[in-house]
């Protein structure tokens, strides 16, 4: 009995040692891939950062108002954020490649999924980034145009423009990621429809006087409203 136990234990130890001996090279290969991946990802980060600086990406982002958003979130410059993002994605890709080499059943499928998902993630992030920039830009443009044109409630208008753009962008992002497509589509339809209906009712109820004044001004020819019209800035 004792001999059997010792024999089984020795067999188990032998199996473990053999499996470990089989596994060890793959673990080393994985670590080497991860290490090399880190180096390559670092080089890619430096290259991306240089290219972005060359094309003055920070300046472009500043013009579009992106830097402000990042500043508010206590994040570094857009160039730094993007190059760091590329670094992490590249390194994560190498780590997953290394994990794939380990040959662990189940993980391989997840790794393949990740690489399949990666381009969509990039496109979604790209859309999100520029969508938020567009929302910021157009809401500010609306605000300025409304203030300079003496349109009532300029902030409300600006916020409405921002909200519509963000909702629209988020719906595209979720669709791109393939997350809850139908739910998002329905939610977007309901939200957008509700917004439009709300605006229509608000305009109809609250804008009657405004519309009347507007039409009266348009229809009454030759009646000059006392204003700063006689002032020429130049």
């Amino acid at each position, binding site marked *: 009995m004792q001999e059997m136990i010792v024999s089984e234990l020795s067999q188990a130890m032998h199996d473990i040692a053999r499996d470990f001996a089989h596994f060890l090279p793959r673990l080393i290969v994985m670590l080497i891939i991860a290490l090399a991946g880190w180096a390559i990802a670092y080089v890619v980060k430096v290259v991306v950062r240089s290219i972005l600086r060359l094309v003055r990406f920070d*300046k472009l982002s*500043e*013009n*579009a*108002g992106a*830097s*402000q958003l990042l500043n508010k979130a206590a994040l570094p410059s857009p160039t730094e954020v993007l190059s760091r993002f590329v670094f992490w994605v590249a390194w994560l890709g190498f780590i997953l490649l290394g994990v794939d080499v380990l040959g662990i059943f189940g993980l391989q499928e997840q790794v393949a999924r990740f690489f399949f998902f990666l381009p969509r993630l990039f496109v979604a992030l790209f859309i999100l980034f520029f969508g938020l920039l567009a929302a910021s*830009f157009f809401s*500010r*443009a609306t*605000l*300025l*145009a*409304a*203030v*300079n*044109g*003496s349109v009532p409630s*300029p*902030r409300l208008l600006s916020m409405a423009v921002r909200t519509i753009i963000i909702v629209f962008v988020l719906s595209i992002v979720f669709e791109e990621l393939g997350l809850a497509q139908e739910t998002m589509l329905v939610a977007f339809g309901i939200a957008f429809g509700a917004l439009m209906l709300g605006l229509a009712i608000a305009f109809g109820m609250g804008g009657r006087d405004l519309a009347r004044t507007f039409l009266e001004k348009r229809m009454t020819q030759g009646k000059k409203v*006392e*204003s*700063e*019209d*006689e*002032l*020429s*800035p*130049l």
Partner: protein
Amino acid sequence: MAEESFLTDDFLRQLINVGEVDILVGLPTHNNAKTVGSIVQTIQSGLVGAFPRERAVILNVDAGSRDNTPELVTSISIDDMRPASNLHALRTLHSISTQCEASPAKGAFRTVLAAAELLRARACVLLSPDSTNIQAEWIATLLRPIYHDGIDLVTPTYCRHKFDGLLITNLLYPMVRALYGLKIREAYATEFSFSGRLGSQFLSQNSWDDGAGAELRFILAAITAKFRICQSYLGEKIHVERRASDLVPALRETVGSLFTALDPDLPFWSAVTGSQPVTTIGSEHEVCLGPLRINRKRLREMFATGVNELESVFESILSPATLAELQRIAGMEEEDFAYPAELWVKTVYEFAASYRKSVINRDHIIQAMAPLFRGRACTFLTENRNSSADEVESNVESLCVDFERLKPYLQQLWNV
């Protein structure tokens, strides 16, 4: 001859038919059929009267008029005015027309410069069809210093109503004077003349990515390159009425161009201290005092609304102290309201620095300036409501001194 590539073949053929000229008169137009006829006759009269022996061409650059403006320009002959005058041209006086792509402000000036270079014009004058009282004498007044005295740039001075051109008196003139060191009254001129060599140099060196405000950049370039500059008094300035909505485009063309020029011109303006007078032929500047109906209350309201509604935009552009001060005066009652000169100067300088750093979209920075300018305009109107011409001039001078005194503040903002 480097700039002919953007000119159309048809226009190049017209230029070849004209040959070399001594004088070129540029006339940018856009739906000016009502006035352009008399303006061309006035130009012809001015040219024949003052320069009968010189070869001259009137060049109309039209921005897509739908009222036959170009046809009117080219159809008017010098013979049309002979019965009414004793003027006789000794040389052929050409009138040609071409189209530019965008608005007159964007493409016309470049076309005029290119044509002047190709025709080897010694002197050029640019006139605006918006000035409804162009006189034949203006041609001689603007061109003689160029043609006979070796001056390279002649800018106009006018007799203006004390409240006409508030953007010029409250921003453009004081700021150009403080930064570039020359007391040029009309740095944004719609009528001015220049030598062929100045035109050629500007044409070859300037970037034409954004053509708006090229005339202002041209005048600033002449200052920085130390060309010989003088001013000529033209008399009363009467121009087409502008609406309140024209303020933002006016700010883009003037303030936007000035702010854009500040970065490349930094070595020049940072070395300038004080300001020097410019030789002026005729009166320095005259102020008229006729009655003018202006709604100051509305100006103040637009200022207050702007300051309140655009707080998030101003936070990116202005320093906290300046913004706080603006918010304080925005809350004042109408009778107490005053936008002090020093605060205005600081506001302008902070806008210039933010424009340079592009803290937000540059066009948005310019648009955000409109309500603040209205506030300053309101204060200027109140302060000078009952002022005589001399008092108005003294107040403008005082503002200019403030701009010069606070110039180190701009330099400090620039270097941060």
